[in-house]
């Protein structure tokens, strides 16, 4: 049995001061947590997660991120499943004057370990390279992402192609981003008979005029079907054997003092387990606190 896991990366307010010793380095730490409640599910009750992410960039150049996260899934029957995750990412920019923008080469690696107190054990490893372009005026963005994931339990591999386009409008106060998730598991038999899934995710971000500390708000929707997705923006692997059949989320980000920011997100997703015809939904709330230097 696979469990439905959502993996978020978090913020640590206790990032040591020595890491910001040089002005040439910009660094940040994120502490985050989430709570998910399942409705109408035969197997899942709720899930809670917490994690930390740290990132550093050198003078608008190379950068890297490291993160760890723990998620506990409470099952309707049986022991809860615990997922421990590690994430590492490296990025290298190239300023391409002939294209009028910056190319960024990025490589992400995920390692997930799922188990309960009985015999259930699963490990997931994923590697995700991507190439992105952002023009110098930061008004147009395009990327091509690829992810290759290995689920050890059933010798399942999953390939994902995720092209993305984003652009600003309304005098740069708004940003609209669209991403396609084309996911192909190696075996439909190991994936509830699902050979391929195709989904479109759209995110709208609106910058707010300075008021009560709120900086921006965002809305996101998922159309189509998605399974085993690797989300580069969330640094997440959705190690879920049930097919996600759409979703919606909304959130706000606030900027406070001394580089401290907070993000609050609420969301709703719909799922279907094709093997048991179990259709259910999840509602979640996500909170992150970040500090940058």
């Amino acid at each position, binding site marked *: 049995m696979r469990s439905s896991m959502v993996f978020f990366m978090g913020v640590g307010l206790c990032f040591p001061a020595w890491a910001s010793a040089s002005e040439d380095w*910009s660094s940040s730490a994120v502490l985050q947590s989430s709570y998910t409640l399942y409705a109408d599910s035969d197997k899942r009750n709720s899930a809670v997660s917490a994690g930390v992410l740290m990132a550093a960039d050198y003078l*608008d150049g190379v950068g890297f991120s490291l993160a760890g996260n723990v998620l506990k899934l409470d099952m309707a029957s049986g022991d809860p499943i615990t997922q421990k995750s590690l994430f590492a990412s490296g990025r290298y920019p190239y*300023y391409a004057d002939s294209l009028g923008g910056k190319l960024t080469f990025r490589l992400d690696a995920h390692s997930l370990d799922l188990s309960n107190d009985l015999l259930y054990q699963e490990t997931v490893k994923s590697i995700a390279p991507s190439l992105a372009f952002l023009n110098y005026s930061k008004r147009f963005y395009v990327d091509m992402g690829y992810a290759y994931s290995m689920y050890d339990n059933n010798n399942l591999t999953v390939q994902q192609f995720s092209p993305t386009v984003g652009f600003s409008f309304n005098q740069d106060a708004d940003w609209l981003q669209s991403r396609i998730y084309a996911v192909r598991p190696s075996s439909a038999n190991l994936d509830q008979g699902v050979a391929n899934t195709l989904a479109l995710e759209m995110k709208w971000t609106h910058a707010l005029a300075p008021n009560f500390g709120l900086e921006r708000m965002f809305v996101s929707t998922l159309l189509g079907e998605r399974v085993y997705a690797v989300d580069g923006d969330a640094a997440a692997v959705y190690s879920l054997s049930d097919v996600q059949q759409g979703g919606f989320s909304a959130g706000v980000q606030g900027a406070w003092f001394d580089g401290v920011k907070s993000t609050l997100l609420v969301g709703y997703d719909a799922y279907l387990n094709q093997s048991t015809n179990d259709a259910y939904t999840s509602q979640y709330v996500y909170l992150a606190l970040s500090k940058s230097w």
Partner: protein
Amino acid sequence: MLKWIMMMVLLLGVSGQVYAQGEAAGVEVWRSSYALEIKGEYEKAAAVLLPLMDEGSNQEYARMRYAWLHYMQGNFNDAIRGYKRVLKQNARSIDARLGVSLPLMAQGRWQEASRYVKQVLALSPLHYTAHLRLMVCEEALRHWADLEKHALSLGATYPSDTTFLVYLARAYAWQNKVEDAQATYWRVLARYPEHLEARKYIDGNESAALVQ
């Protein structure tokens, strides 16, 4: 003896003339480069400087101008390389540091641009252009607290300057310090009554106050 002196005088006169002709030819190259730049022909304006870049007393200036003309063409990487080459030759050059900050800013490399501008301020603490460019970087990086502190510190040195006041007002506005932002924008209007941004902010906040 007299013959020897006359030969020396003749020789000096000839070499002086050759030197003057060489210098005159060099000035013509510069004149040509400036004229081409005014017409917007930056590539040609840079090309005429090539013979001057490896020799002569204006070698450093030629290299800096070559880098500047690359910047004007949008060849930001070439401009950055050019200015950095000048800095390797002359580590004390303020001009090269200010020069390299422009293509870096054009590419959105605000952190690196800030680094060079701060080096200028270490050499020349009250350098107006450097302070201005540092404020542009602080605004782009959204370092509002730093921008506020920076703009405030220049108030005593440049009390009649409008631009620094505008940056101070923006820093206040983005930190939601509405009263401080309004007071600063009023000071901007005292110096420049038609300033659109100041008028827009004050009018917008007066309307909001009336609604409340």
